[in-house]
């Protein structure tokens, strides 16, 4: 197992997280064709939010995975986050039981299946790891990489890294609307006055989710079916040097309908030429649909913007 202490000079890898939204199949395929040619090292694939979204079948995801593998990408299949119906349980089992790709567990049910099969796994940010003892326990069950909860910041990460088990990589979401909550209720269907069972797949009309504003027109949250996200986009580009010091192994970029590849390019360039970070960061704002935030990373409210250009804090 590699020792994290002597690994501090290597560059973190870049990953693209699973698509959170419901996109038409053609858009998904085009997106991953572009990912194949990008600076991305690791690609997470699969539907993680709603089992009713069936533009992409299980075999379609496997096929994309094979194509990306052929292009030298490391491919991971992501399991669903909230498991309610029997069909969702079956789908989770299918993802965990395939032998071709590593799996990102987004529910403890997936961890159970994978560890019982003695398969190594990665945990997504919705698996609650808040302390060193949890990290150790999941490492013993076969966890080889974990995603920091989006509500934790660098001070908490530093504390957990003091006791990080050997062979466990750390991944941090550095760009994207933050996944904040999951429910039985579909909020997109509710916004259209439709029951979930007759949702008409309305969320396909919102490729970046549906913004929920306060009555003062502040973009506050973003409705994405049964998932609630932040309206603001988390951007940790200015913190890349801190991430390297903390030995973060993987930086995750969450896909959005536009500008994802400009964002990937900005992170790739920032990793190669840290002296350009300030310049690269000056363009990040225009890639975010509702503005930027980074508060969680600094131990504050998630919606805060702590960066030097903090005059744009949205209150």
């Amino acid at each position, binding site marked *: 197992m590699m020792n994290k202490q002597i690994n501090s000079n290597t560059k973190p890898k870049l990953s693209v997280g699973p698509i959170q939204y419901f996109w038409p199949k053609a858009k998904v395929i085009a997106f991953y064709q572009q990912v194949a040619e990008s600076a991305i090292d690791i690609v997470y694939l699969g539907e993680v939010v709603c089992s009713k979204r069936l533009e992409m079948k299980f075999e379609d995801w496997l096929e994309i995975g094979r194509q990306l593998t052929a292009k030298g990408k490391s491919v991971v299949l992501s399991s669903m986050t909230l498991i309610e119906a029997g069909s969702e*349980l079956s789908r989770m089992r299918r993802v965990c039981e395939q032998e071709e790709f590593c799996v990102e567990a987004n529910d*403890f049910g997936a961890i159970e299946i994978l560890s019982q099969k003695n398969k190594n796994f990665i945990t997504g940010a919705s698996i*609650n790891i808040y302390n060193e003892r949890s990290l150790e*326990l999941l490492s013993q069950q076969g966890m080889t990489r974990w995603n920091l909860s989006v509500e934790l910041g660098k001070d908490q990460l530093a504390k957990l890294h003091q006791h990080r088990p050997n062979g466990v990589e750390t991944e941090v979401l550095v760009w994207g609307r933050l996944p904040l909550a999951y429910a*039985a*209720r579909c909020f997109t269907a*509710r916004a259209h006055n439709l029951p979930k069972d007759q949702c008409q797949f309305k969320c396909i009309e919102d490729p970046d989710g549906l913004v929920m504003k306060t009555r003062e027109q502040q973009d506050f*949250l973003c409705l994405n079916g049964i998932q*609630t996200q932040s309206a603001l986009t988390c951007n940790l580009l200015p913190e890349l040097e801190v991430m390297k010091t903390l030995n973060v192994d993987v930086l995750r970029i969450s896909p959005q309908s536009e500008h994802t590849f400009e964002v990937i390019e900005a992170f790739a360039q920032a990793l190669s030429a840290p002296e350009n970070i300030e310049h690269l960061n000056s363009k990040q704002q225009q890639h975010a649909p509702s503005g930027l935030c980074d508060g969680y990373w600094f131990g504050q409210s998630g919606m805060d913007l702590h960066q030097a250009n903090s005059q744009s804090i949205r209150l």
Partner: protein
Amino acid sequence: MELVCPAGNLPSLKAAVDNGANAVYIGFKDETNARHFAGLNFNEKSAQAGLTYAKDRGVKVFAAINTYAQGGDFIKWQNAVDLAADLSIDALILADIGVMDYACDKHPDLRLHLSVQASATNPESLAFYLRNFNIQRAVLPRVLSIKQVEQVLQATSVPIEVFGFGSLCVMVEGRCLLSSYATGMSPNTFGACSPASAVQWQEKPNDILETRLNHVLIDRFEKGEKAGYPTLCKGRFEVNKNTYYALEEPTSLNTLSILPGLFNMGVAAIKVEGRQRSPAYVAQVTSIMRQAIDAAQSNRENFQTKAEWMGELQKVSEGSQTTLGAYHRPWQ
């Protein structure tokens, strides 16, 4: 079917015991429990007094240590587990696998219940906690339809507790970060949702009242409208130019009408939410739930909810209205 009732302090504990609870759950005075509110909860002395009172009357006491131990601060959760063990608490209600691991190691004879904050909604997830920590019961999140609850019961050997009455979490518990997004404090990290320290009530001209959470406008009440506490998911927001309760109305869960069904499918216990509520609330809800459970158990075929029960429960509900929540598919 066991009736499990909340107690934020000694008078509430006594109210629950006196009105027919089979078990009472409490928390200690710090962020190790999910009702970490000023002036609430138990220290060693009051917990001991509560235990004595309950046990003398044949009622069990559970301790909720159901937040997530924060990195570098594990000792607080460790101390809470040790205190509960020293007090001979009947069961610990835990959410964090690190804390469960510690409890198993240090106190192998302690009975562990899986908190709703652990977010276990399916039999595979329950199997994880059973295999690793030998949990003796699990509280299901309030996201499953009644049919899905039954499917879980059929597929697991873990006895199941479900919520029967009280404030309704719309989001799956243990995986909701809305509160920390707005205020920096969440149930997982701090033991509170939409914490009082972040709340602002602002009177505006024309008798308009605005409620805010860390400056974010959660709701605005016109003259004559009844203003409620600004719980983040129960405010009015604007989506597609419509202003409405975009996530959920201020409402409470009430399962009286489906009690026989829960009983028939083999639910082990019914939980009442509300450690933050008054002893009068605890007394009222415990008494009605006791009567309803007894009636449902003795006459499953012809059980009917009484209008007076529903009326009384409505009075102590958020926004004076109740719902079956996710149990009832159309709500979803």
